[in-house]
């Protein structure tokens, strides 16, 4: 006969009103695992913590301090930026009066190359080292299809990629069944105007020495870009490849110096570092200061000789030549200075406004809300 005498656990589990603390002793046979939660700071959500609050004592000084830091920095940047000498010539030749107007509709393979000369005057002398840039406008180096159209493996000197470039390079991957080296749209569209600078003094043109090395990042020149590995000269190493469609000559003939030729040609490397925005400038040449007595570029007349190979007119592009000195923060950059001054002032002003509001209407400091 199965009879269940069931009743409250209460009644039989805790005879004589077993105390709450008796958990440890009353655990029948010790097998009963205590279900009492651990009394740890983590489980009880009592972890020590820093509880910051935005009080007038912290916010207002923060605003003033930011203001007081930003304004001097802004002024510093602004002054520095203003001390930088910069000179810019647009030599696209869109205007009919421009000497380069004749070259406007030049094409890649026109022979002989179209040349033009632009004369200009520097009002102020350039004291320190001068950097010569070419600038392009409306040129979408940041277009997705453009950016991806390269084979870094090939440019890194990988021999298999040299002969079998990545598919990303299409449609500039092969030409007449030969792999293109360097492949891709970026390399294919490499800027190939030649700019020469002359100082005109008493009708004599003195060529200014333009240094073409040291214009690329060290990591690019020494890590990222490598010529194909192997023995023999570059011509032999690039055996079996063909030049990019637009190029007049193959990659191993970019320069006479072996350490600036092939993939490690610095003009090429600079071009391959694609710009973020459709208007950009790229470093072209360096003009080093010769002596401490003379400025690098004196004020006076100069002429710029351009071998005009690079067509931009078809897509409304512009080409510029820029001469600039630099400072600790780089080239001319009025935006940063003005932005700093503005933001600093706004912070300071906001600080003042908040202070007034806090004093007039703020009820934070009243002790009315604080019980006892």
């Amino acid at each position, binding site marked *: *006969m199965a009879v*269940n005498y069931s*009743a409250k656990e209460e009644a039989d589990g805790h005879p004589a009103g077993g105390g709450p603390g008796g958990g440890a002793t009353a655990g029948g046979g010790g097998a009963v695992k205590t279900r009492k939660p651990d009394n740890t700071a983590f*489980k009880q959500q009592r972890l020590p913590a820093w509880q910051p*609050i935005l009080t007038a004592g912290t916010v207002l000084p923060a605003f003033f301090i930011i203001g007081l830091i930003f304004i001097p920095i802004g002024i510093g940047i602004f002054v520095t930026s203003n001390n930088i000498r910069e000179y810019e010539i647009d030599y696209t030749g869109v205007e009919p009066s421009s000497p380069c107007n004749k070259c406007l509709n030049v094409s890649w393979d026109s022979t002989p190359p179209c040349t033009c000369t632009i004369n200009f005057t520097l009002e102020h002398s350039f004291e320190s080292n001068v950097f010569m840039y070419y600038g392009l406008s409306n040129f979408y180096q940041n277009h997705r299809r453009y950016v991806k159209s390269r084979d870094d493996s090939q440019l890194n000197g990988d021999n298999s990629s040299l002969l079998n470039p990545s598919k990303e390079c299409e449609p500039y991957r092969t030409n007449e069944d030969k792999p293109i080296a360097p492949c891709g749209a970026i390399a294919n569209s490499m800027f190939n105007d030649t700019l020469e600078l002359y100082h005109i003094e008493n009708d004599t043109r003195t060529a200014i020495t333009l240094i073409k090395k040291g214009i690329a990042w060290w990591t690019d020149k020494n890590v990222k870009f490598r010529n194909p590995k192997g023995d023999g000269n570059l011509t032999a190493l690039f055996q079996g490849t063909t030049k990019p469609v637009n190029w007049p000559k193959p990659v191993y003939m970019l320069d006479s110096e072996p350490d600036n030729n092939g993939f490690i040609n610095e003009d090429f490397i600079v071009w391959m570092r694609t*710009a*973020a925005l459709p208007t950009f400038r790229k470093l072209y040449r360096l003009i080093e200061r010769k002596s401490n007595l003379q400025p690098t570029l004196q004020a006076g007349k100069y002429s710029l000789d351009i071998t005009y190979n690079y067509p931009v007119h078809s*897509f409304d592009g512009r080409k510029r030549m820029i001469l600039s000195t630099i400072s600790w923060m780089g080239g001319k950059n009025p935006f940063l200075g003005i932005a700093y001054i503005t933001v600093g002032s706004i912070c300071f002003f906001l600080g003042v406004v908040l202070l007034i509001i806090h004093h007039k209407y703020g009820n934070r400091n009243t002790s009315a809300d604080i019980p006892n």
Partner: protein
Amino acid sequence: MKVRQATPVTSELADISTLARFDGEVICEPPNNKLDKFGGTLYWKENKFPLSNQNMLLRGCVLRNTEWCFGLVVFAGPDTKLMQNSGRTKFKRTSIDRLMNTLVLWIFGFLVCMGVILAIGNAIWEHEVGVCFQIYLPWDEGVHSAVFSGFLSFWSYIIILNTVVPISLYVSVEVIRLGHSYFINWDKKMYCAKRRTPAEARTTTLNEELGQVEYIFSDKTGTLTQNIMVFSKCSVNGHSYGDVQDVLGHNVELGERPEPVDFSFNPLADPGFQFWDPSLLEAVQLGDPHVHEFFRLLSLCHTVMSEEKSEGELYYKAQSPDEGALVTAARNFGFVFRSRTPKTITVHELGRAITYQLLAILDFNNIRKRMSVIVRSPEGKIRLYCKGADTILLERLHPSNQDLTNVTTDHLNEYAGEGLRTLVLACKDLEESYYEDWAERLRRASGAPEAREDRLARLYDEVERDMTLLGATAIEDKLQQGVPETIAILTLANIKIWVLTGDKQAPGSPCAETAVNIGYSCKMLTDDMTEVFVVTGHTVLEVREELRKAREKMMDGSRSMGNGFSYQEKLSSSKLTSVLEAIAGEYALVINGHSLAHALEADMEVEFLETACACKAVICCRVTPLQKAQVVELVKKYKKAVTLAIGDGANDVSMIKTAHIGVGISGQEGIQAVLASDYSFSQFKFLQRLLLVHGRWSYLRMCKFLCYFFYKNFAFTMVHFWFGFFCGFSAQTVYDQYFITLYNIVYTSLPVLAMGVFDQDVPEQRSMEYPKLYEPGQLNLLFNKREFFICIAQGIYTSVLMFFIPYGVFADATRDDGAQLADYQSFAVTVATSLVIVVSVQIGLDTGFWTAINHFFIWGSLAAYFAILFAMHSDGLFQMFPNQFRFVGNAQNTLAQPTVWLTIALTTVVCIMPVVAFRFLKLDLKPELSDTVRYTQLVRKKQKPQHRCARRGGCGGGSRRSGYAFSHQEGFGELIMSGKNMRLSSLALSGFTARPGAAWIETLRRKKGGESSPDTAAKG
């Protein structure tokens, strides 16, 4: 706990070999879902044996105090009662979940819009510029027109902008909820040491809704009350015993009770039993026959089982605690129920062992509301002892002793007025011949295959007549610990508590009065209340009239526009709602089960709801489980508020399942409620902690988390959109592919997760002290569509600055070595770095509670960003995979530039500054209560750290004693005297409502008004 017994005839099948030869046949009712009924017949050895629910073990039962049993499976699988009963369990989701889904859909729409804009841009660009640019960048194969290119670019943009759609949101939300659930499980303060049960979050998906509860529907028995009955008073032969009196005979105050009665004369007495009136014991010892008969009845007429573990150590196992209390009382007064067999009951009457022959048990049920036993005493006299509800039994008494009946009725009213549960006791002598005849008919009836119960009921009815009144008992229903305090705090938190009680265990008591008394002792009802409306109408019209009167009174009370309002006009009903919401006084509504049935009918439910919602407290008594669910459904339907149902018994299951959140009390009434619930713990008082601490934090954390999550994704993704305008809409990404992959997973996920799991705005004890802190959740202020748009706007604002500041700086800039600065890769690194820094600063601002873990995650994420950045841009990886790691050398070249850092600093300040200014202004001019409390905390920490502890300790000690109160006056006095609640109310109500509180209430009213008017309009 239920007692189940095998049919006695099968008891011979005790070993397996005989069991194997068993060849009976069971014919029974078809499968159904009635848990408390079973009818069947066992055909065995050419005999019929009745089978009832008493002989059944239902699926899901757990055997207690039984080592083994053999059984016969009657139904299996889906035919079992359990499976028949398992209604379609609705999948519960939180309102934030639903909002989140909507928002994600909107974001999808937004994504498509952006895609379309950029695709159109692309088509135009390719048409105007791209066509000419083909000398350097020919179109892809297969693309012959700008329009097709735009079409392709649409898909490209959908892919690169898909990060606005927060896929990882769902996973993160679940992780956070899981964390919160663990915190609930781990909470030491919700652990009941007595039952050794911790609180348990049985679902992990509802946590933040705990912070938004507006209505609590509570069961009474076992939830508010302990379901522990204490024999408190009795009336024997017109004399009432049990009042606590001092030497001079005056009733004394609670708390200074004299010594309890000494039962040491009785070796079998239960040491746990306490009684304060010595006169009853004196009456027993003097040999008053009425008192003896009274206790004899108590020791005989019951279904308690006794167990004697060792000589004199008796344990009673009772089905209902009432019975246990009565039998224990008899035991202590010298009528010790010692043991029983199916046919006998042995009682020690004042030391003398007497064995009565048990002839029949006429068991209790809900219709009969009484139970009787028929016993044959050793002298051979047959006697029927009956106990039951006063309403039933008083009608069945012999009309001769009308005087005694009147006195007893007075006593009964007195007891009921004190909130005690009463039973009337009566007895009757039976003639031997009459009994024989009756017993024979009973045997036949119980063997009958159909309508057995009806026939039995008729037989029972016949014998239980013309009885002699013995007296009445009053049992005290003990409140759970901390119930009044919890209700007081929850009420202050603007949570409305409705008590829905089935009250099946107090059959005799006038229900409404008991409920009202429980209401007073729970502090649901207070003397502050202008009026308590009691609705007890039996017909539709009565109920409607009573409700109407109640509302009229409330309108008059509020005086503003109470005159001449016609309730019949449908037009006015929308106005009515708003008026009722603005009622000035405090009212309470008590409604009876049968009135509720009418009130819940379709044409009256809105009326009922409006009336009920205008009241501070609502008590529904004698409601069926289905009605409980209907009430919850009603509020859910019309109020759009979050509802919570709490209960402990099987009759609460439907309500628990219906409410947004179901809480089960894992107490004495089995585990059905717990199994159906979302959260379970063992004491009602833990509810305040669950809601005010865990719920509040969960809601806060979830809202902060969601805001930040949407913000960071928009800030991150929208940069691509702006960049699109400068890259020919070519779907070029701004960032490195690895940054895009890792941004959501590594750089920004952990700090916000840490905030979502650990954040606290105010310490836990403050949320109890200032229950008003709970209101933002109810009003859904921390995360709603408006907040979402603010987050999105902030994200877009950040993305604009994130793109255009570097754009402005980089446009013509060069590096400090003369080379071009604005190359794509440097730009990408700059934007990415400033983005990571800005969102890190933002999470720092959002985090209000910086634990070591938060520090570790926030600083760790920043460190991880830089570590991964430098690793990805290292020579080694590039040498291995030159086409995958194109950014070689970029990090060290870019981040060495002062201009880049100046840009990052500028971007950070510009992005963060307005946020700080805005938040400061909000804090300074319109602080939320939580801000004030937080600020106060800071100030107080500096001032006096130890003052608080001392006072809290005092409160805890003081309130325990007042946990049980007989009369509402005393209970309320306790409330005033304890000081704690006064301080609470004065602080939370006056201190806060004085200034910004008015605005709060306005918002609340507007919200409610706005919500209810469309409902009523739709009806009209």
